[in-house]
């Protein structure tokens, strides 16, 4: 019989060389706190990681109003000032919601109804505004929108139509541009945050701008056909956008195309391609701009890329399947990854050392862990 202690011991040995002995003194004096949403548990978990204790669940927050209806918390984002965090609930009657929580006490302070299945949400660096994609994962294949919410009054001030099944929601570092991807239209869409209108669309299959007749793509990278053949046609099916900290590029995960595309943010052209098999899903660039971390959904892996050289630095296998979200600690030291699991499996949060490109710990949270957002770094007093 395997008891809990034995399981712990096995797990510890399995993690083996990944233990905190590799950490520097500086690494050991801080703890990282972040929030994780579990879509099939209607829970948000506050997770803590430090180099000594590893990952721990600090708090579990039940979300939603109906205990017998799954309301599907999906997107989660911490306000840059840390005072509030924002959560999308995908399932409503039928429209979903954006909830505003007070950080720390983690209670709802305001709610606003959005569109069909709002998914990813983001807040720009200057705060006060949230853009959430109404992904409408399961509706008719018609164009959907991005909801723009004033966060002080929790008022939806605009609903900008973008494309069919928008997903991913991230701002440029200066907050003036918003990027989202179109899973069914193979586009990268840029919204001008000043006008809230779509400023540019990039066809990710052809590498050309859409809609204004301007054809870009005179170099090989931008005109090369993207994606793989699915049902007789090329498909990218982009699921995520990850701007670089300097705003020069945006990385787009082609989930079905098994590529990550580097898009020049100024020219809106594809400039590089990374072959990422296993259905790349979410991505994050380290704050120091040196690495790209990509979750690979079907492969159950996370790849880490050196952006300057374009080389893959390593591949980390996840403890479960269906890898989902990723964030990177502000010091660019660790990546924290969510893994959904399948069926009755719990969701999992994994911590990856971005120096050794190895998993250093994993902890279970509610089922279908997906959305993840960084809260803060705490000093640890010795």
């Amino acid at each position: 019989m395997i008891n809990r202690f034995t399981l712990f011991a096995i797990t510890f040995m399995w993690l083996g060389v990944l233990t905190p002995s590799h950490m520097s003194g500086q690494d050991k004096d801080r703890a990282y706190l972040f929030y994780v949403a579990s879509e099939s548990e209607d829970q948000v978990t506050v997770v803590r990681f430090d180099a000594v204790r590893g990952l721990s669940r600090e708090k579990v927050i039940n979300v939603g109003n109906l205990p017998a209806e799954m309301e599907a918390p999906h997107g989660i984002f911490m306000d840059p000032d840390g005072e509030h965090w924002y959560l999308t609930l995908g399932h409503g009657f039928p429209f979903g919601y954006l909830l505003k929580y007070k950080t720390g006490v983690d209670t709802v302070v305001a709610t606003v109804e959005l569109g069909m299945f709002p998914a990813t949400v983001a807040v720009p660096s200057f705060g006060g505004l949230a853009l959430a994609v109404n992904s409408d994962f399961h509706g008719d294949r018609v164009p959907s929108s991005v909801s723009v919410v004033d966060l002080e009054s929790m008022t939806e001030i605009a609903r900008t139509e973008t494309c069919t099944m928008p997903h991913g929601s991230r701002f440029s570092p200066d907050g003036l541009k918003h990027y989202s991807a179109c899973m069914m239209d193979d586009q990268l869409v840029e919204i001008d945050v000043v006008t809230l209108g779509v400023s540019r669309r990039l066809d990710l299959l052809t590498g050309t701008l859409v809609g204004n007749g301007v054809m870009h793509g005179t170099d090989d990278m931008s005109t090369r056909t993207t994606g793989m053949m699915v049902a007789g046609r090329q498909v990218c099916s982009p699921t995520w956008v990850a701007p670089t900290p300097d705003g020069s590029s945006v990385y787009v995960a082609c989930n079905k195309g098994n590529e990550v595309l580097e898009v020049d943010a100024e020219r809106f052209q594809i400039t590089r391609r990374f072959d990422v098999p296993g259905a790349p899903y979410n991505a994050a660039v380290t704050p120091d701009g040196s690495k790209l971390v990509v979750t690979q959904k079907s492969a159950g892996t996370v790849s880490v890329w050196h952006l300057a050289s374009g080389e893959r630095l390593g591949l980390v296998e996840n403890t479960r399947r269906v890898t989902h979200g990723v964030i990177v600690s502000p010091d660019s030291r660790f990546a924290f990854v969510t893994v959904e699991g399948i069926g009755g499996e719990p969701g999992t949060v994994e911590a990856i050392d971005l120096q050794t490109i190895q998993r250093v710990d994993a902890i279970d949270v509610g089922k279908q862990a997906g959305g993840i957002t960084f809260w803060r770094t705490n000093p640890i007093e010795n």
Partner: protein
Amino acid sequence: MVGAKTGLGMLVAFGFGLATAGSAQTPTRLEINPASLSLDVGDTVVVTATAYDEAGNVMDVPLTFFSSSRRRLEVDRGAGTVVAHRGGEYTLSVRVLTARDIRASIPVMVEFPALASVEVTPLGERFFVGASVRHRAKVLDVTGDVRTNVPPRWATDDPSIASVNRFGVVTAHREGDVTITATAGAASTSHEYRVIANPIRTVTLSASQDSVRTGDVIHFEATALDARGQRIEDAPVTFSLIASPDDSAITQSATAEVDQKGRFVAEKAGDYTVLAVAPGNVAQHTVRVTNRDVSRRIEYVGQGQVSNVPTSDLWIWEGVDGRDYAVTGTWGAHGAAYFWDVTEPSSPALVDSVVVDARTVNDVKVSEDGRIAVISREGASNRRNGLVILDVTNPRSVQVLSRYDDELTGGVHNVFVYQNHVYAVNNGRRFDVISIEDPTNPHRVGRFELDTPGHGIHDIWIVNGIAYTSNWGDGVVMIDVGNGRWGGSPSNPVEIARYRDSGGRTHAAFPYESPTGRFYIFMGDEIGRSVPGGDRDGSPEAMAGFFHIVDMTDPENPEEVARYDVPEAGSHNLWIEDDVLYAAYYNGGMRAVDISGELKGNLYRQGREMAHYMAFDPEGFRANAPFTWGGQPYKGNLFFAEHNSGLWAVKIHPRTQVLTP
């Protein structure tokens, strides 16, 4: 207040010069001009905003306007053009989108539309001296909306003939002609009565029954007669009652009701005197109400415990081998459906299970011939949900025949199997009709979706070729899917009628043709309840909401006549059979309710409850936390699914009369 008032439809520009992009500086203050707005519905105005730096200099920066209710007070976010669509008080704001706190707001008052008419009831030609009749006024504005925020003013042109109070109660004092006027704003309605001498000499009052039980409806009929003994058809008669309940601790007013159609129902035993009041005459009739005495002993029979995961719905059926079986779903778990042999209900035996790629198998249904089961899928790892069709000819060896998710990827929450078709609630928006005549090759043949703004759907139930869909705020919709009377078929669903109850949270509905000849629809809410102190991990959960009972005998004139409302708990699924409502009531447990006879009032308080059972299981997913999902009477037992503890069977024993010498 500084304001700008415009005429209907006028365009008034206050200046327009803003919104150029690209300023590197952020202002410290914004100001909207004017400082407030007072508009009429239909007005269009343009407001401007000015940005100032710390030194008070005007800055040229992009600004964005928005309204606290963009559907009612539309605003062009760039141009500042404001269009007032609905009356009310709003806030118009402007902000620098690229700065968190740089914003300004002004109040906007939109006058409600002009009032167009006042409709008064009741009306007639004559009024009897001594009569007092309450009149009601419905105020309508030019858009046709009923304006409940404008109370009418009542007036009489000759108070010596007839006076009227502020509630619209008109009292006639002497003979003559009088005009009663109801006024709301500029709209008014006047009605002229001829007040005549009161011809009523006697009033008689009869009751359909003199002795009833609590919950039974008595129909009272009052007849006013003149000096010649002739019936006066337009005699103003009002009903009231005096209660003398057996329980002396209960006040006179809280135990029974009589409406102005003369329908009486009591909640407590006692003597009740109903009064029929006509000018100068009162008739009274006393009836005896006894306790309903329908309570029955309910006894635990058996449990098929599921304690590792929450349980969802159930279905019980007789298998092709003549034995009895149940299927239960699981919720927020590993995508399992469990099959039980319940031939011996005291010991349900788990005989097989099916696990699909899902986290919730919310609904389970079995075909009429007991050969095909359909289970719904939600939370599939690849987000392709849909449903799974199973061969349950041998429930000990259930076989997956096919999976169907074409345009059903959003998660099928509920299904109904009816005459070789699956009716699948799709993505909370519509239902799809899928033929399973060849269950290995299911294919869509029809679809139905409402056209109301923001419509949704939660459940579907089919009886006699009519689908009853539960549509949250849109209530229940009746759709011909094969009855034929309205030309409907599975491939051509035809809407028959719809009814929105007073709750607006319709989650499940069940039709019932009562032996009384009345046709009722029971409509259940689903509403969450916050329980103070209940947020600790593992705490029992609670719900709110109740069952609304709608008399749909005349589909053109439905009437919400009764409710079954258990305090401190919430309604979920339901089943009706042989004049008994089997109500799954979440934290209120499994409840059986006598719904015989005509229904009126709150059935819970009328002693109509026959039995209820709280399924406590110390080993449950949540220990000792009844959270009843749904029940199904079957061959003398009542089976029900408990969210926290699996499949249960109880027996409701026939009522035994205790004879005393």
